[in-house]
């Protein structure tokens, strides 16, 4: 049990106790002596009398002193704790590295009763009350760890630093924090070395390969486990949110797909409420039921005709850890789908071009909700194209890609872009299988051809419930049977890849292969997209077929917008002729100047939420902003350029705790002592102990009342 004071300077007020003593002495009546006759009667009267004047005066003095003492104690803001904090420190001079776990799992409990607050106040009280032969250094253990102070002897400053610190939204990196602590202990002023870790023992933070060897470090380790202080368990987390749009009808449908995980292995979650919030308003809500430890994918769908960016989040009902109950997203609905068509077989006559039919099918001079804007390119021009400005890339009978370009395509698709590969006589199968092997779920094998006289291959008219084909029925479906295919490439499935075959020939050979890659889609059309190998382009249904597949695969246009980052994860913003500006969810503005070597990178995303991007022309940043980077304001000519979301890494949400044996194993070589903060802190207002301000104030009030009563009685 310890009693610590937040403002110990007020304890000097105890000198004020001399005041009532002085008053008592000064006002004490002079004792006179009288020779009296009936002293024996006085004795009898005194025995009978209940009142005792002298004790009353002493009692008054005592009460006044106690009232003053209580006032001083209350002003000193005492914290009472059942935990013996001095026991955390040895008596001999010791250098202690204080490792405070400030990962977001320590936010459990919320507000002033969070685990972090408790740990922080415990440390602050410890530092304040520690004897002068103790030296401290402070490391925050969120990944990446930060050493907040070296061997600082200024306790007050260290306590202030501690109290000013806040829990982060990062994951735990205990191993790296130990690495930092070991480095600090190398310069420790005392021979006795210790590491004091305050954590919730979240298993996520204990990756054995990140820990330094504790052999021969000469440091003992004391761990205070605060996980027992968590009032309610972390039940569920939103693991991911993906937003897509559909143009399958005349209105645009926004589809918000999210995955929720029940973090409790032994308990089902029934009636868990999930809600969708768009621009601060609740858009939809549903109730989920999850089995023990199960994940569930659900989606919210709603029509959206506007052009504005959608900023929102999916939110779960509150549980023990609020930070993982909300996952942000931002989405820029497409108005124009820009498709980059790469013509691998250009001819002098336009209608003989490989892309002739598909280009016209995409842009038939008719309007719908979404316009498709095909942009034609040659393979040689590809490196000069900025893929991020396109929704989809269509490689039409391209012989081979420019050197190394497949990596750009992979990055483009993984970030949400779409790739349609159509084949033809120009295709170098070997090059395709080598370069696009990562993207395509199948391997190209042989070319299957029939002569003009032979029976061509036919298209199997079946939609099989695919969303892109679901509108084809009846007459249109019957027309599909008129498609004659003379040549196509057979493919062979790769064993570790999953894919769909939405369309196939009557001989069961795949005509269209669909697969997911990252956040994007990859489609392989095993025949040509012009009339060289089939007559499909001249069929009436070719146009809607192209339109639907392009819309289907082009889920989103703005690839940057679809980026979903973890806290503090760096984002490459792309090279522009000007500055990038980032506005964080709390309104702070950062300016990312062009880099001479490499692309501009933003890595200061410390809080979850939607970060807005702006661009300004070169030299647009005002001199004021340059002079005062902390208080930057967006320049008036800043142009919105999308945004990205930052969310917490849900690995930290997993409530599994590392066992003592595992801790001893990881830290073998160092004496380790683990103690749990098991005291119930239900009534704790100020963390690290029970605030004694009110009790002392009440005691003072009682003293004053008693004093008044006694004076009145006198």
């Amino acid at each position: 049990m310890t009693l610590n004071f937040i403002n110990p300077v007020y304890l000097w007020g105890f000198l004020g106790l001399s005041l009532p003593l002085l008053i008592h002495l000064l006002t004490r009546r002079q004792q006179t002596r009288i020779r009296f006759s009936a002293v024996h009667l006085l004795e009898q009267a005194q025995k009978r009398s209940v009142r005792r004047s002298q004790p009353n005066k002493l009692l008054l003095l005592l009460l006044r002193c106690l009232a003053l003492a209580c006032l001083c104690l209350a002003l000193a803001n005492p914290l009472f704790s059942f935990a013996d904090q001095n026991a955390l420190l040895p008596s001999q001079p010791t250098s202690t590295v204080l490792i405070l776990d400030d990962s977001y799992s320590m936010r459990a409990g919320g507000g002033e009763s969070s685990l972090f607050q408790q740990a922080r106040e415990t440390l602050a009280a410890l530092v304040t009350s520690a004897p002068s032969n103790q030296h401290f250094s402070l490391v925050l253990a969120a990944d990446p760890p930060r050493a907040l102070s070296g061997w600082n002897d200024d306790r007050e400053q260290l306590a202030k630093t501690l109290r000013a610190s806040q829990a982060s939204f990062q994951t735990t990196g205990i191993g790296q924090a130990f690495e930092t602590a070991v480095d600090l202990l190398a310069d420790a002023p005392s021979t006795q070395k210790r590491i004091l870790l305050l954590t919730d023992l979240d298993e996520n933070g204990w990756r054995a390969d990140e820990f330094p060897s504790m052999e021969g470090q000469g440091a003992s380790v004391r761990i205070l486990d605060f996980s027992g202080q968590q009032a309610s368990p972390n039940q569920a987390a939103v693991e991911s949110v993906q937003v897509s749009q559909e143009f399958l009808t005349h209105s645009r449908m926004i589809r918000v797909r999210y995955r929720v995980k029940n973090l409790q292995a032994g308990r089902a979650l029934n009636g868990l409420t999930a809600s969708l919030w768009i621009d601060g308003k609740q858009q939809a809500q549903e109730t989920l039921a999850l089995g023990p430890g199960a994940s569930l994918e659900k989606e919210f769908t709603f029509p959206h005709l506007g052009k504005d960016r959608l900023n929102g989040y999916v939110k779960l009902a509150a549980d023990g850890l609020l930070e993982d109950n909300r996952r942000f997203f931002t989405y820029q609905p497409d108005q124009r789908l820009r498709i980059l068509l790469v013509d691998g077989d250009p001819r002098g006559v336009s209608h003989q071009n490989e892309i002739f039919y598909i280009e016209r099918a995409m842009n038939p001079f008719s309007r719908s909700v979404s316009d498709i804007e095909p942009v034609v390119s040659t393979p040689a021009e590809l490196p000069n194209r900025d893929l991020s400005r396109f929704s989809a890339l269509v490689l039409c009978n391209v012989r081979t890609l420019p050197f190394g370009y497949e990596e750009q395509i992979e990055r483009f698709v993984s970030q949400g872009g779409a790739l349609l590969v159509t084949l033809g006589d120009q295709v170098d199968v070997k090059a395709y299988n080598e370069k696009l092997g990562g993207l395509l779920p199948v391997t190209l094998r042989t070319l299957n051809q029939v002569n003009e006289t032979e029976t061509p291959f036919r298209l199997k008219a079946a939609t099989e419930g695919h969303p892109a084909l679901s509108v084809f029925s009846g007459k249109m479906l019957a027309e599909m049977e008129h498609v004659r295919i003379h040549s196509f490439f057979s493919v062979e499935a790769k064993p570790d890849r999953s894919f769909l075959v939405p369309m196939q020939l009557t001989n069961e050979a795949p005509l269209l292969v669909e697969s997911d890659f990252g956040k994007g889609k990859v489609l392989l059309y095993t025949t040509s997209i012009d009339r060289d190998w089939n007559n499909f382009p001249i069929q009436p249904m070719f146009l809607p077929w192209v339109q639907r597949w392009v819309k289907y695969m082009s889920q989103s246009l703005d690839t940057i917008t679809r980026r979903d980052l973890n806290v503090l994860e760096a984002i490459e913003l792309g090279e522009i002729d000007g500055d990038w500006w980032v506005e964080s969810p709390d309104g702070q503005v950062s300016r990312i100047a062009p880099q001479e070597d490499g692309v501009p990178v933003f890595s200061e995303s410390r809080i979850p939420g939607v970060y807005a991007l702006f661009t300004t022309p070169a030299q647009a940043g005002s001199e004021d902003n340059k002079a005062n980077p902390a208080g930057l304001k967006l320049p008036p000519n800043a142009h919105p350029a999308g945004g990205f979301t930052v969310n917490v890494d849900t690995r930290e949400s997993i409530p599994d705790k590392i066992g003592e044996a595992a801790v001893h194993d990881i830290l073998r070589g160092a004496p380790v002592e683990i103690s749990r903060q098991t005291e119930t802190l239900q009534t704790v207002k100020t963390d690290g102990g029970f605030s004694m301000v009110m009790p002392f104030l009440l005691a003072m009030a009682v003293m004053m009342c008693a004093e008044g009563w006694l004076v009145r009685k006198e």
Partner: protein
Amino acid sequence: MAETTLQGYDPEVLARIAALKIHASRLVEGILSGQHKSPHKGSSVEFAEYKDYTPGDDIRHIDWKVVAKTDKYHVKQFEQSTNLKCHILLDASGSMAYRSPLKKSTAMAKDEYAKTLVAALSYLLLRQYDAAGLITFNDRLVDHIPPRSKPSHLQPILYSLSRTEFTGETQIRRTVEELIEILPRRGMVVVVSDLLTRDDNVLKTLNLVSSKGLEVILFHILHPDEVEFPFEGDIVFESLEDDPPVGLDPHDIRKQYQKLIQELIEHYWQHCPSMGIDYQFMQTDAPLDQALRYFLLRRRSLLKK
């Protein structure tokens, strides 16, 4: 006669005696003025002493033989045959010496009051040709002047009073036990005391006297301070007798003390009549003639018996 000589050489004692005498005579004369002359005048023929003739003296009492021998006129004085022998017992314990420390107090000191009372009683007795004797006591017999009825007997009484020092404890019982054998079968015993003693058997002791056939008058004298206990502040009360000092705030016990002192007075007031004792409580701020009138009243009723 040696005492007479001594008193003549001690001016302080003389002054005290004179003051006592003047005070006593003034009191008594005031009370007796207008009353009938003593019925006992000249009833005795026993020569007592000579005195210088002064105009107004009865010329029948001039001793002509002496005139012939000395050529000076002397008047024969005869001792009256005494109807009453009165022993006055004065409590000379330390408690009687209480003097109020309060400036506002106007009451007489208890010892002065008692001395004046005794002197006045003696003068009154002697003036009426009764025999008056004085016994002073504390825890023992301090002084004993046997009763005489000659007028000049007032001198030794006053002398004794003037020399009395109030010290020691009050032990009425021991005094009475010493005196009981020498007290006459008839007569009067006047006890003047503050009765502030731890002895609870004062009344029993006085009852011994009363049961012997003597008329007992008990003058209970207290200073107003002893009744009202008007002190304030932190006070250590030191005993005038042998009690240990007591430190207290009088405010705390005033009511208890007043109750105790009233119980004491009440005790004597209730039980004295049943034992044939006349009890008279007097505060020293009360006029002394009140006590004298009471005494006269009692004496007359006694003579009628």
